[in-house]
């Protein structure tokens, strides 16, 4: 069973590497955000599998915490873009009024 856990965690790790690569090259900003989000989900899975691999499944609390708050960052990003759009609009209007 241990080797199964090990294989699964290696698969997840390789996926994490791919996500990081996407985060590094990703042409648009959103690709990077996508990479962060995906990396977060993979971290949840990784922590869950590792806690079984190390024989202490009571450490699932960590994965649970991640699953709960991982997406707050994406909300912050959404809000950031929204306010940036409106702010630029406001600046353009101010310029036009001058």
């Amino acid at each position, binding site marked *: 069973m241990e080797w199964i856990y090990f294989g699964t965690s290696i698969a997840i790790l390789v996926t994490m590497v*791919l996500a990081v690569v996407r985060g590094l090259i990703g042409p648009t900003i959103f690709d990077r955000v996508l990479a962060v989000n995906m990396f977060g989900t993979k971290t949840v*899975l990784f922590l869950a599998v590792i806690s079984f691999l190390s024989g202490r499944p009571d450490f699932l609390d960590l994965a649970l915490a991640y699953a709960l708050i991982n997406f707050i960052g994406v909300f912050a990003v959404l809000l950031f873009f929204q306010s940036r759009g409106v702010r630029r609009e406001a600046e353009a209007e101010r310029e036009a009024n001058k």
Partner: protein
Amino acid sequence: MDLVLDIASAVLLLTGGFFVFVGGFGVMRMPEFFTRMHAASLTDTGGAALILLGLMLQGGLTLVPLKLAAIFLFLFLTSPTASYALANAALLSGVKTACRNETGSPLPENQPDNATSRPATVSRAKASAGKTAAKKVSRKAAPAKPAKTAAKKAVKKAARKPAKKTAKKTARKKS
């Protein structure tokens, strides 16, 4: 019985690992943002479900399977929501035009139904995205492309002003 459980969870874990890997591969290889997102969000849910189910079978009759179920539930809720939020932000910023198009055919514009619901953000963000798109394409693509984007930019510039006016109007109406 233990052996059956072990085999079942091994199959689930390995399939889940494979799914997760395929998702990563898709994120790596897909040509543009929305297709990448499709790969990521689908396997985020599917692979995660398989892996967590496989672990659940190993948990025995303790608190562990419950915790795993909670993790699954929260992932199931948050992951698509995050994908939605991200896709929305990308659409509002006009990512579509910023992506490479393999065939070279003209890219579809974002539809104005967004413009009526959130006028100011859309028109403004589109314009700025057009600029970055022009920059990016001219850096990367074949020399024929910059001319095209420049033309598109000009069209946009012309289109921006009236769009903004209607935007203001709708904003006032709302308030």
